C-alpha cells in the first residue's frame, strides 16, 4: 500500500498544531485545537485507503480499482461527531465565561488547595527557622514574626473563602452578571487590615 506523503505530512502538522492548542488553558483555544486535530486525524483515516483509485462510476470502471469507500464513511461519521462535540464545547465555553468571566479551565480546587498549603507551610517553616536563628527576642521582632505568620494564614483563608464561594456559586451577583475575573472575587473579599490575597497568590495566575 502506498500513501500520499503530502496527505500524511498535512495530517501530522494538523495534529501537532491541534495538540499544542489543546494544551493551553482557554476553552476556545482547546476547541480550536480539537477541531484542527480532528481534521488531521480524519486525513489519517483517509490515508488508510492507500493510493487514490479510479472514480466510482457504475459502468466502465473495474470495481477493484475504485477507492475503498469505508474509510470515507468512517471519516464522515467522525466529522459529524466532531461537529456535535464542538457545538457542546462552544456552549460550555460561553457558559463558563458567563459564570466566571473567563473561559479558562480552572484547576481542581483540591489540587490548588494542596499546592497553596504546601507553599504556605514551607514559607512558615523558613520563617520560623530564621526567627529561631536570629536570637533576637525583642517585642519588635516578635511582632514582625507574628505579622508575617498572620499574613500567611490570611492567604490560606482568603483562598478557602474563594473556594467556598465558588462551590456555592453565590458570589457577588454583580460579578456573576458582568463577568469578573477570579481576582476580582479575591479583591472584593479583601481584608482591610491585611494585604490583599491576590498580590502574593500565585494560585490565581497558575
Amino acid at each position, binding site marked *: *500500500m502506498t500513501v500520499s506523503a503530502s496527505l500524511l505530512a498535512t495530517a501530522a502538522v494538523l495534529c501537532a498544531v491541534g495538540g499544542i492548542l*489543546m494544551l493551553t488553558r482557554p*476553552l476556545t483555544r*482547546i476547541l480550536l485545537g*480539537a477541531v484542527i*486535530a*480532528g481534521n488531521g*486525524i*480524519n486525513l*489519517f*483515516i483517509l*490515508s*488508510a485507503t*492507500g493510493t487514490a483509485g479510479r472514480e466510482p462510476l457504475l459502468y466502465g470502471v473495474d470495481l477493484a480499482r475504485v477507492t*475503498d469507500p*469505508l*474509510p470515507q464513511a*468512517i471519516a464522515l*461519521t*467522525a466529522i459529524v*461527531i466532531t461537529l*456535535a*462535540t464542538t457545538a*457542546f*464545547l462552544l456552549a*460550555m465555553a460561553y*457558559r*463558563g465565561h458567563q*459564570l*466566571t468571566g473567563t473561559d479558562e*479551565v*480552572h484547576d*481542581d480546587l*483540591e489540587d490548588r488547595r494542596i499546592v497553596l*498549603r504546601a507553599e*504556605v*507551610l514551607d514559607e512558615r517553616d523558613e520563617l520560623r527557622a530564621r526567627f529561631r536563628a536570629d536570637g533576637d527576642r525583642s517585642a519588635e521582632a516578635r511582632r514582625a514574626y*507574628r505579622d508575617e*505568620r*498572620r499574613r500567611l*494564614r*490570611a492567604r*490560606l*483563608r*482568603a483562598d*478557602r*473563602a*474563594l*473556594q*467556598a464561594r*465558588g*462551590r*456555592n*456559586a453565590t458570589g457577588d451577583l454583580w460579578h456573576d452578571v458582568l463577568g469578573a475575573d477570579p481576582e476580582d472575587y479575591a479583591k*472584593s*473579599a*479583601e*481584608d482591610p*487590615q*491585611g494585604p490583599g490575597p491576590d498580590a502574593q497568590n500565585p494560585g490565581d495566575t497558575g
Partner: protein
Amino acid sequence: MNALVPLPVLLPLCATGLSLAFGTRLKRFQRFISVAVLTAVLGLSVALMIAADRNGPLSVHLGDFAPPLGITLVADRLSGLMLTVSSAITLCVLVYSLGQGMADRDEETPVAVFHPAYLILVAGVSCTFLAGDLVNLYVGFEIMLVASFVLLTLGGTGPRIRAGSTYVIISLFSSMLFLTAIAMTYAATGTANFAQLAERLGGLPLGVQTLIQAMLLTVFAIKAAVFPLAAWLPDSYPTAPAPVTAVFAGLLTKVGVYCMLRTETLLFPGNRLGDLLMAAALASMIIGILGAVAQTDLKRLLSFTLISHIGYMVFGIGLATRQAYGGAIVYVVHHITVQTTLFLVAGLIERRSGTTELTRIGGIARAAPALAVLFFVPAMNLAGIPPLSGFIGKLGLMRAGVADGGVWAWILVAGATATSLLTLYVMAKVWNLAFWRAAPPGQAAAGTVLESDDDSDDDDAEGGPDRMAGTGDEGVRVRHQPAGLAVAATLHGHAVTTTSVLPRPMTWATAAAVALGLSFTVFAGPLTSYTDRAAAELLARTPYTQEVLGR
C-alpha cells in the same frame, strides 16, 4: 431471536424522539415512556442473555451488508450479562431520579432535558456492549459521551461547568486516540470487524500488532480510569447530581473494562502486555485506595475507591486465564451494582443532612436507621466481607492469581488483599463519621458552615476563628436561608433542602439496588458458572467468529 439484538439500542433511541416531542408538555407521559422503555430493555437483555447462553452468540448484520462493510451487532454471553446488569441498574437509577425530580419539583423547569439525555446514554451503553466492529464501538462511545456531557453539566452551575470541561476535554482526547487507532487498524488489516480482525491481526508483524494493542488499551484505560490515566475522574464526577454520578460511576468506567476484556481476548490472544496490565492494576488499586483514605468528602472518597477497584478487573484481564476472566466478569457485575448503590446512598445522605462532607455530618444511624442499613450493606459488599458478592469476586481473582503462580501474580494477590483491607478501613471511617458518632454541632439546622473546621494551620495562642469578615474564618454564621440549605445537588442545580422524611421512590430504588447486590450472593452458584462459561467462550474465540462470519 437474532432480530432482538439491535432492540436494546433502537428502543431507547426511538423513545428519545418521543420524549423530546412530547416531553415538554406531558411530563407524566415522558416519565412513563422512560420507565417503560428501560423495563423493556431489561426484559430484552435477560432474553438475549439466556438465548446466548443456550444457543451460542447471536449476531445481526444491519442492512444485510456482509461483515467488512455493514454494521454488525453481536450478543454473546459476556455482552448479554453486561446488558442485563446495566439495564437493571439504569432502571433503578431512573426511578431514583424520578423520585428526586418529583421531590424537587423539577417539572417546573422549562427544558426537560434529563430524560432524553438519559435514554441516549442507555442506548450508547447498549451499543458499546453489542458492537461487533471497532467503528461501531467508537460510535457507541460517542453516543454515550455526548449524553454524559449533557448530564454532567445539567443546570450549568459554576462547579459543574468547571468539572465538565475537564471531562469533556479528556473524552475528546481519548476519542481522537481511538480514531487514530481505528485508522491504523484499518490501514493494516483492511477491516474493522472484530471477527475478521481476529483472523487477520495474527498475520501482522509483531510490532504493528503491539502498537495497535497498546493504542486501544490506552483508549480503554482512559475510559476505565486505570491509574496513570485516572486523574480526571475524582475531579469531574462528584459535582454532578447524585443519580448521574451513580450511573456514571457504575457504568461508564465498566464500559472501558468491557472493551478491554473484549479486545484482549478476541483480537489479541496470547496476553503479550499482561505484565504491563498487572503493573497498572497494582498502581490503580494502591494509589486509588490511598486517595480514598485521604478524602473527607463522601462523593470524592467513593470516586477514589472506584479507581482502586477498577484495578481488580484489570488484574483479571492481565492474568488472562479462564479462571481470571471468570473472576473479572463477576467483579465487573458486582462492582457496577455496588458502586452505583453507594453513590445513590450518598445522594440520600446529602438530602438528609445537607452535605456529603464527612466532617460536618454525623448521627445518621440514630436519625435514619433505614439509611444506615442501605449504606452498610453495599459498603461491606465493596470491602469484600465473606458472604457478599465482593468476596466472591475477589476470591475468584485471587484463586486465579495463586493458580497462575508467577511473581507478578503473587504481588497482585498481596496488593489486592491490602487494598481490600484498606477499603474496609475507609468504609469503617465513613461509617464512624457519618453514622455512628453524635451529630456535630454545626450540622444542617444551625445553618451552613462555609468551610470545614480544619484549622490545623491555625496554631496561634488565641485559637478559634479570627472573625475577620471575608477571610472565610468567621466561624459558624447563620445565614438568612432555610435551615440546611447547602451546595447545589438537585438535577438542575438548585440547592437541596434537607428533609427528615426521604422521598419514597428514592429510598425504594436504592433498596432495589442493594437487593440486586445481595442477589448476586444468593445466586452465586448460577452466576459463577455462567461467568465461567462466558470466560471459556471468550478464550475459545471460535463461537464468536463463526457466528459473525457464518463459517
